[in-house]
């Protein structure tokens, strides 16, 4: 588990993550350091919300805790807000999952 630095308002839980979490509200345009990576925020990020640390392609997995947590629905640029407007669940929480299951023609 990553450690919290009092002066750092962001946390990247796992080095494999392509998102980091804002620990305080961050303004659009702010420059933040995520480990060794410098990111300029393209959107205001509310407290507890995620932003992209690197580019995420449409359909690519969003990685947090070192694990897949959903898929981008559109291309996401570094510093952009990552949330329900550009990510869907790949599981029971998502419309893609529902259409995948019903396309098979039978409900289990």
């Amino acid at each position, binding site marked *: *588990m990553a450690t*919290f*630095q*009092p*002066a750092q308002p962001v*946390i990247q*839980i796992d080095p494999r993550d392509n998102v980091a*979490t804002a*620990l305080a509200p961050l303004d659009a345009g702010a420059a933040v350091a995520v480990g060794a990576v410098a990111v300029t925020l393209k959107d205001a990020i*509310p*407290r*507890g*919300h*995620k932003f992209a640390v690197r580019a995420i392609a449409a359909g690519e997995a*969003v990685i*947090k*805790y070192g*694990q*897949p*947590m*959903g898929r981008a629905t559109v291309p996401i640029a570094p510093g952009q807000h*990552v*949330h*329900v407007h550009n*990510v*869907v*669940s*790949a*599981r*029971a*929480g*998502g*419309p893609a*999952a*529902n259409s995948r*299951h*019903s396309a098979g023609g039978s*409900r*289990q």
Partner: protein
Amino acid sequence: MSNTFSGYLRPDGSVGVRNHVLVLPTVACACHVAAQVSAAVPGSVGISHQHGCAQIGEDARVTFRTLAGTGANPNVGAVLVVALGCEQWAAEAFAGTIRAAGKPVEIVGIQAEGGTSRAIARGTELLRGLAERTAAAKRQPCPIDRLIFAMECGGSDSFSGLTGNPVVGEVADIAVAAGATVMMSETTELIGAEHLLAERGATPEIGERARRMVLDCEKSCLAYGADLTGSNPSPGNIEGGLTTIEEKSLGCLHKGGSTPIQEVVAYAQRPTRRGLVLMDTPGCDVESVAGKAAGGMNLMLFTTGRGTPMGCAVAPVIKIATNSPLARHMAENIDFNAGAIADGTTTMREAAQALWALVLEVADGALTRAEILGHREFGIRRAAPTL
């Protein structure tokens, strides 16, 4: 570290951190009388529900198991069963389970007594007798390794997976190292993390059972044609930064700590193993907490990011804020602020030690905020429609 706490030793060898006198209505129709009787005897605990009749199959069995298990919980010293008289599960069935746990039980039936007022009068007389008997019980040194802890998260935000659940997980590891049992549940909130659970079984079969439990839950959701987003994660979860069920689950998983899963049990089923145990419950907190209480939990650690005041009818709930703004805003409901970890004013290790110390104080009798405020939520999981 001492291996005892100050509690109530029960005839069946279990230990209680409280000594409740419980009023247990067998069916929805008995709840008003039960509530009036409980109100007449200060200090007694009443529960209320909408079930107990016209239920089928596993749904009926779950209702019985949840009510009977609540009465048999180690924190309960005595039970008054309030029945109507024509319901699906007879009062004697509940009484039998509770007596088998070594507790005194009385029964009052509305139809047998001749109506509401007579049942309230007779029930109050019986309950006062039970309260006098239980008042004689005294706390004594009890083994910590007989305690059953339960971990819950509710009103989660993205801090839940960063502060609250990880610190609860550290306490889970402390409790397991002390020989105790730790129950985790909320199956919906493991969807997306089940592959990690599968690796954590004490045996491959247990790991596979855990994985299947989660996948079966997902299948049920899909069978309804439902999109979970907006129900789980809830609107409050989403406002708090959680985007998908997978993200929520990956954060929720931390509250079980790092030890192997020893057993997977059904809703409201008492575990038979020590160590970390999974119970199959909904993510909905009212049903999840009641299921674990029926499974015998003594004390709960409950993290919240958005702020839920929930308690439990028969067990103390320690409410843990995941972030400092919540700990200030809803201070009257919060027992412990894990948000200090994100602020950098305490380390995860220091917070875990402080939380464990609080757990032992609560086990010894210190009241939690939910107890002081009178929160006694109770709810039964449904598995089928009523007919």
